Protein backbone atom coordinates (compact mmCIF):
# COMPACT_ATOMS: atom_id res chain seq x y z
CA UNK A 1 0.00 0.00 0.00
CA UNK A 2 2.79 2.36 0.92
CA UNK A 3 4.29 2.45 -2.58
CA UNK A 4 1.17 3.54 -4.42
CA UNK A 5 -0.11 6.05 -1.92
CA UNK A 6 3.29 7.73 -1.61
CA UNK A 7 4.11 7.63 -5.33
CA UNK A 8 0.84 9.19 -6.48
CA UNK A 9 1.53 12.69 -5.06
CA UNK A 10 4.85 12.71 -6.94
CA UNK A 11 3.25 12.67 -10.40
CA UNK A 12 2.60 16.46 -10.50
CA UNK A 13 6.39 16.88 -10.50
CA UNK A 14 6.14 15.85 -14.17
CA UNK A 15 4.10 19.03 -14.86
CA UNK A 16 6.93 21.27 -15.98
CA UNK A 17 8.62 18.88 -18.46
CA UNK A 18 5.21 17.73 -19.72
CA UNK A 19 4.10 21.33 -20.29
CA UNK A 20 7.33 22.19 -22.12
CA UNK A 21 7.24 19.13 -24.36
CA UNK A 22 3.56 19.48 -25.22
CA UNK A 23 3.88 23.21 -25.96
CA UNK A 24 6.73 22.72 -28.43
CA UNK A 25 5.93 19.34 -29.95
CA UNK A 26 2.14 19.17 -30.32
CA UNK A 27 -0.50 21.02 -32.31
CA UNK A 28 -1.99 23.58 -29.88
CA UNK A 29 -5.35 21.83 -30.06
CA UNK A 30 -3.77 18.61 -28.76
CA UNK A 31 -1.68 20.57 -26.27
CA UNK A 32 -4.86 22.03 -24.83
CA UNK A 33 -6.62 18.68 -24.59
CA UNK A 34 -3.65 16.80 -23.17
CA UNK A 35 -2.54 19.39 -20.65
CA UNK A 36 -5.97 20.28 -19.28
CA UNK A 37 -6.68 16.56 -18.82
CA UNK A 38 -3.25 16.11 -17.21
CA UNK A 39 -3.81 19.06 -14.88
CA UNK A 40 -7.16 17.74 -13.67
CA UNK A 41 -6.03 14.11 -13.28
CA UNK A 42 -2.69 14.89 -11.62
CA UNK A 43 -4.24 17.35 -9.19
CA UNK A 44 -7.15 15.06 -8.33
CA UNK A 45 -5.02 11.95 -7.83
CA UNK A 46 -2.31 13.69 -5.83
CA UNK A 47 -4.81 15.36 -3.53
CA UNK A 48 -6.78 12.13 -3.25
CA UNK A 49 -3.65 10.24 -2.20
CA UNK A 50 -2.96 12.82 0.51
CA UNK A 51 -6.49 12.26 1.73
CA UNK A 52 -5.91 8.48 1.81
CA UNK A 53 -2.78 8.91 3.90
CA UNK A 54 -4.69 11.10 6.32
CA UNK A 55 -7.60 8.64 6.57
CA UNK A 56 -5.27 5.69 7.05
CA UNK A 57 -3.65 7.55 9.94
CA UNK A 58 -6.95 8.65 11.47
CA UNK A 59 -8.31 5.11 11.75
CA UNK A 60 -5.16 4.13 13.65
CA UNK A 61 -6.45 6.19 16.54
CA UNK A 62 -8.18 3.51 18.71
CA UNK A 63 -11.21 5.68 19.58
CA UNK A 64 -11.91 6.53 15.95
CA UNK A 65 -11.40 2.93 14.87
CA UNK A 66 -13.90 1.87 17.50
CA UNK A 67 -16.40 4.50 16.36
CA UNK A 68 -16.05 3.35 12.74
CA UNK A 69 -16.49 -0.29 13.86
CA UNK A 70 -13.01 -1.24 12.76
CA UNK A 71 -10.67 -3.71 14.39
CA UNK A 72 -7.78 -1.74 15.77
CA UNK A 73 -5.67 -4.90 15.86
CA UNK A 74 -6.04 -5.43 12.07
CA UNK A 75 -5.40 -1.74 11.28
CA UNK A 76 -2.29 -1.68 13.43
CA UNK A 77 -0.77 -4.54 11.45
CA UNK A 78 -1.72 -3.02 8.13
CA UNK A 79 -0.15 0.37 8.01
CA UNK A 80 2.53 2.25 9.88
CA UNK A 81 2.39 5.80 8.58
CA UNK A 82 4.30 8.06 10.94
CA UNK A 83 2.19 10.59 12.77
CA UNK A 84 4.17 13.53 11.38
CA UNK A 85 3.73 12.49 7.76
CA UNK A 86 0.05 11.83 8.27
CA UNK A 87 -0.40 15.23 9.88
CA UNK A 88 1.35 16.96 6.99
CA UNK A 89 -0.74 14.99 4.49
CA UNK A 90 -3.90 15.92 6.36
CA UNK A 91 -3.00 19.60 6.43
CA UNK A 92 -2.12 19.62 2.72
CA UNK A 93 -5.34 17.78 1.91
CA UNK A 94 -7.36 20.28 3.92
CA UNK A 95 -5.56 23.21 2.28
CA UNK A 96 -6.26 21.72 -1.16
CA UNK A 97 -9.97 21.38 -0.36
CA UNK A 98 -10.09 24.95 0.93
CA UNK A 99 -8.20 26.36 -2.08
CA UNK A 100 -10.44 24.43 -4.48
CA UNK A 101 -13.57 25.76 -2.81
CA UNK A 102 -12.24 29.34 -2.75
CA UNK A 103 -11.27 29.17 -6.41
CA UNK A 104 -14.62 27.67 -7.39
CA UNK A 105 -16.52 30.48 -5.68
CA UNK A 106 -14.33 33.23 -7.16
CA UNK A 107 -14.37 31.81 -10.69
CA UNK A 108 -18.10 31.13 -10.61
CA UNK A 109 -18.63 34.73 -9.61
CA UNK A 110 -16.34 36.00 -12.39
CA UNK A 111 -18.01 33.84 -15.00
CA UNK A 112 -21.46 34.90 -13.83
CA UNK A 113 -20.36 38.53 -14.19
CA UNK A 114 -19.01 37.78 -17.66
CA UNK A 115 -22.20 36.01 -18.71
CA UNK A 116 -24.24 38.94 -17.45
CA UNK A 117 -21.93 41.34 -19.26
CA UNK A 118 -22.27 39.36 -22.52
CA UNK A 119 -26.05 39.41 -22.17
CA UNK A 120 -26.19 43.12 -21.38
CA UNK A 121 -24.14 44.25 -24.38
CA UNK A 122 -26.26 46.03 -26.98
CA UNK A 123 -27.56 44.32 -30.07
CA UNK A 124 -27.98 40.65 -30.81
CA UNK A 125 -24.91 40.10 -32.99
CA UNK A 126 -21.91 38.25 -31.60
CA UNK A 127 -19.69 41.21 -32.45
CA UNK A 128 -19.96 44.43 -30.48
CA UNK A 129 -18.01 47.45 -31.64
CA UNK A 130 -17.26 50.09 -29.07
CA UNK A 131 -16.30 53.68 -29.77
CA UNK A 132 -12.90 53.84 -28.17
CA UNK A 133 -9.55 55.23 -29.23
CA UNK A 134 -7.74 52.57 -27.22
CA UNK A 135 -7.12 49.47 -29.34
CA UNK A 136 -8.78 46.58 -27.55
CA UNK A 137 -10.35 43.27 -28.53
CA UNK A 138 -11.57 40.43 -26.40
CA UNK A 139 -14.07 37.60 -26.13
CA UNK A 140 -16.53 37.42 -23.25
CA UNK A 141 -17.76 33.94 -22.39
CA UNK A 142 -21.53 33.75 -22.25
CA UNK A 143 -24.62 32.12 -23.58
CA UNK A 144 -24.09 33.24 -26.27
CA UNK A 145 -20.66 34.76 -25.75
CA UNK A 146 -19.73 38.08 -27.34
CA UNK A 147 -16.74 39.55 -29.12
CA UNK A 148 -15.89 43.14 -28.28
CA UNK A 149 -13.65 45.15 -30.60
CA UNK A 150 -12.93 48.83 -30.18
CA UNK A 151 -12.88 51.25 -33.09
CA UNK A 152 -9.28 52.01 -32.11
CA UNK A 153 -8.39 48.38 -32.85
CA UNK A 154 -10.30 48.37 -36.15
CA UNK A 155 -8.47 51.55 -37.20
CA UNK A 156 -5.11 49.95 -36.47
CA UNK A 157 -5.77 46.88 -38.65
CA UNK A 158 -6.21 46.45 -42.39
CA UNK A 159 -8.92 44.17 -43.79
CA UNK A 160 -7.00 40.86 -43.76
CA UNK A 161 -5.80 41.62 -40.24
CA UNK A 162 -9.38 42.28 -39.13
CA UNK A 163 -10.41 38.93 -40.59
CA UNK A 164 -7.59 37.28 -38.66
CA UNK A 165 -8.66 38.99 -35.44
CA UNK A 166 -12.31 37.97 -35.83
CA UNK A 167 -11.38 34.39 -36.77
CA UNK A 168 -9.20 34.21 -33.66
CA UNK A 169 -11.97 35.47 -31.39
CA UNK A 170 -14.59 33.24 -33.01
CA UNK A 171 -12.35 30.24 -32.29
CA UNK A 172 -12.43 31.18 -28.59
CA UNK A 173 -16.18 31.65 -28.74
CA UNK A 174 -17.19 28.48 -30.55
CA UNK A 175 -14.57 26.29 -28.86
CA UNK A 176 -15.75 27.35 -25.38
CA UNK A 177 -12.11 27.85 -24.56
CA UNK A 178 -12.82 29.32 -21.14
CA UNK A 179 -13.86 25.84 -19.95
CA UNK A 180 -10.36 24.42 -20.56
CA UNK A 181 -8.73 27.35 -18.81
CA UNK A 182 -11.11 27.10 -15.87
CA UNK A 183 -10.54 23.35 -15.46
CA UNK A 184 -6.77 23.79 -15.56
CA UNK A 185 -6.82 26.73 -13.12
CA UNK A 186 -9.08 24.77 -10.77
CA UNK A 187 -6.52 21.95 -10.78
CA UNK A 188 -3.71 24.44 -10.15
CA UNK A 189 -5.62 25.85 -7.19
CA UNK A 190 -5.92 22.37 -5.66
CA UNK A 191 -2.27 21.51 -6.25
CA UNK A 192 0.12 24.40 -7.04
CA UNK A 193 2.59 21.92 -8.53
CA UNK A 194 0.42 21.67 -11.66
CA UNK A 195 0.57 25.45 -12.25
CA UNK A 196 2.93 25.03 -15.24
CA UNK A 197 0.22 22.93 -16.89
CA UNK A 198 -2.43 25.60 -16.34
CA UNK A 199 -0.17 28.34 -17.73
CA UNK A 200 0.63 26.15 -20.74
CA UNK A 201 -3.09 25.50 -21.33
CA UNK A 202 -3.80 29.24 -21.37
CA UNK A 203 -0.99 29.84 -23.86
CA UNK A 204 -2.06 26.84 -25.97
CA UNK A 205 -5.61 28.25 -26.18
CA UNK A 206 -4.26 31.46 -27.74
CA UNK A 207 -2.10 29.43 -30.12
CA UNK A 208 -5.07 27.23 -31.02
CA UNK A 209 -7.13 30.31 -31.89
CA UNK A 210 -4.17 31.69 -33.86
CA UNK A 211 -3.87 28.47 -35.87
CA UNK A 212 -7.62 28.54 -36.50
CA UNK A 213 -7.26 32.10 -37.77
CA UNK A 214 -4.35 31.03 -39.99
CA UNK A 215 -6.52 28.26 -41.47
CA UNK A 216 -9.39 30.69 -42.04
CA UNK A 217 -7.31 33.47 -43.55
CA UNK A 218 -5.08 31.01 -45.38
CA UNK A 219 -1.88 32.90 -44.62
CA UNK A 220 0.15 32.36 -41.44
CA UNK A 221 2.26 35.48 -41.98
CA UNK A 222 -0.87 37.58 -42.33
CA UNK A 223 -2.06 36.43 -38.91
CA UNK A 224 1.38 36.99 -37.38
CA UNK A 225 1.39 40.55 -38.72
CA UNK A 226 -2.14 41.13 -37.39
CA UNK A 227 -1.18 40.03 -33.88
CA UNK A 228 1.98 42.12 -33.86
CA UNK A 229 0.20 45.20 -35.17
CA UNK A 230 -2.66 44.80 -32.71
CA UNK A 231 -0.32 44.34 -29.77
CA UNK A 232 1.75 47.39 -30.62
CA UNK A 233 -1.40 49.46 -31.21
CA UNK A 234 -2.87 48.29 -27.90
CA UNK A 235 0.34 49.20 -26.08
CA UNK A 236 0.48 52.70 -27.52
CA UNK A 237 -3.18 53.61 -27.18
CA UNK A 238 -3.71 52.25 -23.68
CA UNK A 239 -4.91 54.93 -21.31
CA UNK A 240 -3.28 53.74 -18.11
CA UNK A 241 0.09 52.02 -18.16
CA UNK A 242 0.08 48.84 -16.15
CA UNK A 243 2.59 48.58 -13.30
CA UNK A 244 3.78 45.11 -14.33
CA UNK A 245 4.80 46.50 -17.69
CA UNK A 246 6.93 49.16 -16.07
CA UNK A 247 8.66 46.43 -14.08
CA UNK A 248 9.17 44.37 -17.22
CA UNK A 249 10.81 47.34 -18.88
CA UNK A 250 13.20 47.80 -15.97
CA UNK A 251 14.26 44.17 -15.96
CA UNK A 252 14.59 43.83 -19.70
CA UNK A 253 16.75 46.88 -20.27
CA UNK A 254 19.92 45.03 -19.29
CA UNK A 255 19.99 42.60 -22.21
CA UNK A 256 18.90 42.34 -25.81
CA UNK A 257 15.48 40.68 -26.01
CA UNK A 258 15.42 36.94 -26.51
CA UNK A 259 12.46 34.86 -27.60
CA UNK A 260 12.98 32.37 -24.77
CA UNK A 261 12.10 34.84 -22.03
CA UNK A 262 9.72 36.95 -24.12
CA UNK A 263 6.03 37.41 -23.34
CA UNK A 264 3.29 35.39 -25.02
CA UNK A 265 2.72 37.77 -27.94
CA UNK A 266 6.21 37.55 -29.53
CA UNK A 267 6.19 33.79 -29.02
CA UNK A 268 2.83 33.52 -30.78
CA UNK A 269 4.09 35.64 -33.66
CA UNK A 270 7.27 33.57 -33.95
CA UNK A 271 5.20 30.37 -33.96
CA UNK A 272 3.09 31.71 -36.83
CA UNK A 273 6.16 32.72 -38.78
CA UNK A 274 7.45 29.14 -38.38
CA UNK A 275 5.85 26.27 -40.34
CA UNK A 276 2.45 24.94 -39.19
CA UNK A 277 2.75 22.80 -36.05
CA UNK A 278 2.43 19.04 -36.25
CA UNK A 279 1.63 16.71 -33.39
CA UNK A 280 4.39 14.30 -32.41
CA UNK A 281 2.56 11.06 -31.63
CA UNK A 282 5.26 9.70 -29.26
CA UNK A 283 5.05 12.87 -27.15
CA UNK A 284 1.25 12.70 -27.11
CA UNK A 285 1.40 9.02 -26.14
CA UNK A 286 3.96 9.71 -23.41
CA UNK A 287 1.69 12.37 -21.95
CA UNK A 288 -1.29 10.01 -21.96
CA UNK A 289 0.83 7.30 -20.29
CA UNK A 290 1.78 9.67 -17.46
CA UNK A 291 -1.90 10.54 -16.95
CA UNK A 292 -2.96 6.87 -17.05
CA UNK A 293 -0.21 5.86 -14.60
CA UNK A 294 -1.24 8.55 -12.14
CA UNK A 295 -4.83 7.32 -12.33
CA UNK A 296 -3.76 3.69 -11.92
CA UNK A 297 -1.53 4.45 -8.92
CA UNK A 298 -4.30 6.40 -7.22
CA UNK A 299 -6.77 3.58 -7.85
CA UNK A 300 -4.37 1.01 -6.41
CA UNK A 301 -3.77 3.21 -3.36
CA UNK A 302 -7.51 3.54 -2.80
CA UNK A 303 -8.00 -0.21 -3.27
CA UNK A 304 -5.28 -0.99 -0.74
CA UNK A 305 -6.90 1.23 1.87
CA UNK A 306 -10.34 -0.15 1.12
CA UNK A 307 -9.10 -3.74 1.47
CA UNK A 308 -7.56 -2.94 4.82
CA UNK A 309 -10.69 -1.18 6.05
CA UNK A 310 -12.98 -4.05 4.92
CA UNK A 311 -10.74 -6.54 6.65
CA UNK A 312 -10.73 -4.46 9.82
CA UNK A 313 -14.49 -4.12 9.59
CA UNK A 314 -15.05 -7.88 9.31
CA UNK A 315 -12.58 -8.54 12.13
CA UNK A 316 -14.37 -6.06 14.36
CA UNK A 317 -17.71 -7.82 13.86
CA UNK A 318 -16.31 -11.16 14.99
Amino acid at each position, binding site marked *: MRVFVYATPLFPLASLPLARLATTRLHPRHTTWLLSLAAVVLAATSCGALGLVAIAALVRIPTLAHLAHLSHRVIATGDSTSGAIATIAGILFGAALLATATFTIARTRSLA*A*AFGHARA*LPGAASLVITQDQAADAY*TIPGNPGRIVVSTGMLDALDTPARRALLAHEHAHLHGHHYLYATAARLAAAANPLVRPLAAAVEYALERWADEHAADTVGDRHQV*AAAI*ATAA*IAAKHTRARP*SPTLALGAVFSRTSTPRLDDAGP*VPRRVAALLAPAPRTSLPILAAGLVVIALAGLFALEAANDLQDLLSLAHVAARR
Partner: protein
Amino acid sequence: MAALRKPQRNKAPRRASGALESAVLAVLWEAGQPLSATDVRERLLAHDGGSADLAYTTVVTILTRLHEKNALYRQREGRAYRYAPVADEAGLAARRLSALLDATADRNAVLSSFVNDLSDADEQLLRALLGARTHGTSHPARG
Protein backbone atom coordinates in the same frame (compact mmCIF):
# COMPACT_ATOMS: atom_id res chain seq x y z
CA MET B 1 -35.49 47.57 -4.53
CA ALA B 2 -37.41 50.42 -2.92
CA ALA B 3 -41.12 50.44 -3.58
CA LEU B 4 -41.93 52.79 -6.38
CA ARG B 5 -44.64 54.94 -4.97
CA LYS B 6 -45.88 57.34 -7.57
CA PRO B 7 -44.85 60.86 -6.63
CA GLN B 8 -46.97 63.79 -7.73
CA ARG B 9 -43.99 65.19 -9.63
CA ASN B 10 -44.16 62.36 -12.14
CA LYS B 11 -47.28 63.93 -13.58
CA ALA B 12 -44.98 66.61 -14.98
CA PRO B 13 -44.78 66.72 -18.80
CA ARG B 14 -42.80 63.93 -20.60
CA ARG B 15 -40.26 66.46 -21.83
CA ALA B 16 -39.09 67.03 -18.27
CA SER B 17 -38.55 63.34 -17.72
CA GLY B 18 -36.67 63.14 -21.03
CA ALA B 19 -34.40 65.95 -19.93
CA LEU B 20 -33.79 64.21 -16.66
CA GLU B 21 -32.87 61.04 -18.54
CA SER B 22 -30.25 62.91 -20.54
CA ALA B 23 -28.94 64.53 -17.40
CA VAL B 24 -28.63 61.11 -15.73
CA LEU B 25 -26.84 59.72 -18.78
CA ALA B 26 -24.51 62.71 -18.85
CA VAL B 27 -23.65 62.21 -15.19
CA LEU B 28 -22.87 58.54 -15.80
CA TRP B 29 -20.74 59.45 -18.81
CA GLU B 30 -18.71 62.02 -16.96
CA ALA B 31 -18.18 59.67 -14.06
CA GLY B 32 -16.44 57.13 -16.26
CA GLN B 33 -17.21 54.47 -13.67
CA PRO B 34 -20.38 52.66 -12.61
CA LEU B 35 -22.52 54.66 -10.18
CA SER B 36 -25.32 53.73 -7.80
CA ALA B 37 -28.64 55.59 -7.80
CA THR B 38 -27.52 57.47 -4.68
CA ASP B 39 -24.30 58.60 -6.41
CA VAL B 40 -26.26 59.74 -9.47
CA ARG B 41 -28.69 61.74 -7.34
CA GLU B 42 -25.86 63.40 -5.42
CA ARG B 43 -24.07 64.39 -8.60
CA LEU B 44 -27.28 65.68 -10.18
CA LEU B 45 -27.89 67.86 -7.14
CA ALA B 46 -24.31 69.08 -7.20
CA HIS B 47 -24.68 70.04 -10.87
CA ASP B 48 -27.70 72.24 -10.43
CA GLY B 49 -28.74 73.09 -6.92
CA GLY B 50 -32.17 74.02 -8.26
CA SER B 51 -33.63 70.52 -8.32
CA ALA B 52 -32.99 69.97 -4.64
CA ASP B 53 -36.28 68.17 -4.31
CA LEU B 54 -35.25 65.43 -6.74
CA ALA B 55 -36.51 62.21 -5.15
CA TYR B 56 -34.35 59.10 -4.87
CA THR B 57 -37.19 56.99 -6.28
CA THR B 58 -37.35 59.25 -9.34
CA VAL B 59 -33.68 58.61 -10.03
CA VAL B 60 -34.21 54.87 -9.58
CA THR B 61 -37.17 55.02 -11.97
CA ILE B 62 -35.11 56.83 -14.61
CA LEU B 63 -32.19 54.43 -14.22
CA THR B 64 -34.50 51.42 -14.47
CA ARG B 65 -36.16 52.83 -17.56
CA LEU B 66 -32.80 53.55 -19.20
CA HIS B 67 -31.71 50.04 -18.34
CA GLU B 68 -34.85 48.61 -19.95
CA LYS B 69 -34.05 50.65 -23.05
CA ASN B 70 -30.62 48.98 -23.11
CA ALA B 71 -28.99 52.36 -22.69
CA LEU B 72 -27.48 51.39 -19.37
CA TYR B 73 -25.64 48.36 -18.17
CA ARG B 74 -26.21 47.49 -14.56
CA GLN B 75 -24.53 45.30 -12.01
CA ARG B 76 -25.82 44.32 -8.59
CA GLU B 77 -23.61 45.42 -5.75
CA GLY B 78 -24.89 44.54 -2.32
CA ARG B 79 -28.52 45.60 -2.16
CA ALA B 80 -28.30 48.25 -4.88
CA TYR B 81 -27.42 48.32 -8.56
CA ARG B 82 -24.56 50.20 -10.13
CA TYR B 83 -25.12 51.63 -13.60
CA ALA B 84 -22.87 52.45 -16.51
CA PRO B 85 -23.85 53.66 -19.97
CA VAL B 86 -23.87 51.12 -22.79
CA ALA B 87 -21.64 51.84 -25.75
CA ASP B 88 -22.80 51.69 -29.38
CA GLU B 89 -25.04 54.65 -30.21
CA ALA B 90 -23.70 56.74 -27.43
CA GLY B 91 -20.12 55.88 -28.23
CA LEU B 92 -18.92 54.90 -24.80
CA ALA B 93 -15.37 53.83 -24.23
CA ALA B 94 -14.90 50.07 -24.11
CA ARG B 95 -12.88 50.22 -20.97
CA ARG B 96 -15.66 52.06 -19.21
CA LEU B 97 -18.00 49.30 -20.27
CA SER B 98 -15.59 46.74 -18.92
CA ALA B 99 -15.10 48.68 -15.72
CA LEU B 100 -17.97 46.81 -14.17
CA LEU B 101 -16.42 43.51 -15.04
CA ASP B 102 -13.02 44.69 -13.87
CA ALA B 103 -14.56 45.59 -10.54
CA THR B 104 -16.18 42.24 -9.95
CA ALA B 105 -13.92 39.81 -11.72
CA ASP B 106 -10.38 39.12 -12.66
CA ARG B 107 -10.59 40.37 -16.22
CA ASN B 108 -7.79 38.21 -17.50
CA ALA B 109 -9.30 35.14 -15.89
CA VAL B 110 -12.50 35.15 -17.91
CA LEU B 111 -11.96 37.46 -20.89
CA SER B 112 -9.79 36.22 -23.74
CA SER B 113 -7.92 39.26 -25.03
CA PHE B 114 -6.61 39.16 -28.57
CA VAL B 115 -3.24 40.44 -27.40
CA ASN B 116 -1.75 40.53 -23.93
CA ASP B 117 0.19 43.40 -22.44
CA LEU B 118 3.45 44.02 -24.16
CA SER B 119 6.71 44.91 -22.45
CA ASP B 120 9.20 47.23 -24.16
CA ALA B 121 11.44 44.24 -24.84
CA ASP B 122 8.49 42.39 -26.36
CA GLU B 123 7.76 45.30 -28.65
CA GLN B 124 11.38 45.46 -29.76
CA LEU B 125 11.28 41.74 -30.45
CA LEU B 126 8.03 42.02 -32.40
CA ARG B 127 9.41 44.76 -34.60
CA ALA B 128 12.49 42.63 -35.22
CA LEU B 129 10.36 39.60 -36.12
CA LEU B 130 8.18 41.58 -38.50
CA GLY B 131 11.09 43.50 -39.95
CA ALA B 132 12.91 40.27 -40.67
CA ARG B 133 9.81 38.90 -42.31
CA THR B 134 9.58 41.77 -44.74
CA HIS B 135 13.30 41.53 -45.46
CA GLY B 136 13.11 37.82 -46.20
CA THR B 137 14.81 36.15 -43.24
CA SER B 138 12.58 33.93 -41.15
CA HIS B 139 14.09 33.56 -37.64
CA PRO B 140 16.10 36.54 -36.56
CA ALA B 141 15.55 36.43 -32.81
CA ARG B 142 16.23 32.78 -32.06
CA GLY B 143 19.16 32.15 -29.70
